[in-house]
């Protein structure tokens, strides 16, 4: 993942935000969607994505659906009700963080 320390803390929020928009997604789809949105700037590694997905699932924020696609089983992730509430909280927290960072990095632009 690019600039890992900066992005690491936001990985769960990125995943939850994508799932909020898309409804349900599978692992590979998430990595490609992030790449597409950020025009290749942000590359979520497999080693970071799956532990995050499994942790969110264990915390009850994600639910899993399994479907047979092209002769193999595919695991789809979607937000639970608890996950939806948590997404709203985490997004507002992230927005606040970005606002504060902007004020610190570029005080002239903040008002």
């Amino acid at each position, binding site marked *: 993942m690019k600039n890992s320390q900066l992005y690491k803390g936001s990985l769960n929020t990125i995943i939850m935000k994508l799932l909020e928009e898309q409804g349900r997604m*599978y*692992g*590979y789809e998430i990595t*490609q969607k992030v790449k597409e949105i950020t025009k290749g700037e942000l590359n979520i*590694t*497999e*080693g970071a994505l*799956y*532990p995050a997905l*499994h942790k969110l699932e264990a915390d009850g924020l994600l639910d*899993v659906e*399994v479907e047979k*696609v*092209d*002769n*193999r*089983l*595919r*695991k789809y992730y979607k937000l639970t009700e608890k996950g939806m509430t948590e997404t709203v909280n985490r997004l507002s927290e992230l927005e606040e963080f970005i606002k504060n960072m902007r004020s610190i990095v570029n005080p002239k632009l903040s008002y």
Partner: protein
Amino acid sequence: MQLTNTQLDLIDRFLEQHQLDFLDFKLEVKDHLATATEELMKEKEISFEDAFLLAVEPWKNELQVKKYWLISKERLFPIFVIQRIKNKVAFHYVSVILIALIGTLMIHYLPFENKVFKYGVGFCGMVYFLLRRIMNNKKVKTSYRFQFDYFYLSVILVFAYFFVFQLSFAYANFIGFLVLANFPFTIYYFVKHQQFVEKYNLK
């Protein structure tokens, strides 16, 4: 471009060569690699073999195999699996051993008789073998099944050995408490395994 069953089998074999045989991890990685391979074949117009080599590149570190003594002394696991289960396994063993130690030290103050203790251990052992039989009906390998068996089977057999040969009861108490303390974990792994089998509709 959809992969053929033979190509999917090759991915399967590749993952098993890297000791990724627990289905609760393997199925997801297999789908990820297969999808990435399909996309690369289409995008770059290359063969399955070339596309697969590119698809597997980001997994190189995750699929490296290592021995991790806490999970098993006998076999290797890919780093991907070790990272996922090592904390759970550590929590499991530490709590079981601690409870067993406390139980053994306090046995004289505990409100049950020796007979009840033995029946309790016997009951846990019987339930374990019953659940094991149910699990063995379907040959599905998961990390839950591995953890269900790995520690408990040996503990129960050691207790049975102490019991049959009427060996030193201080040790037998400790082993008995190990059986009791491990029982909730056994049930947990059994339930998780069954849920997985049901969700994936595996036979």
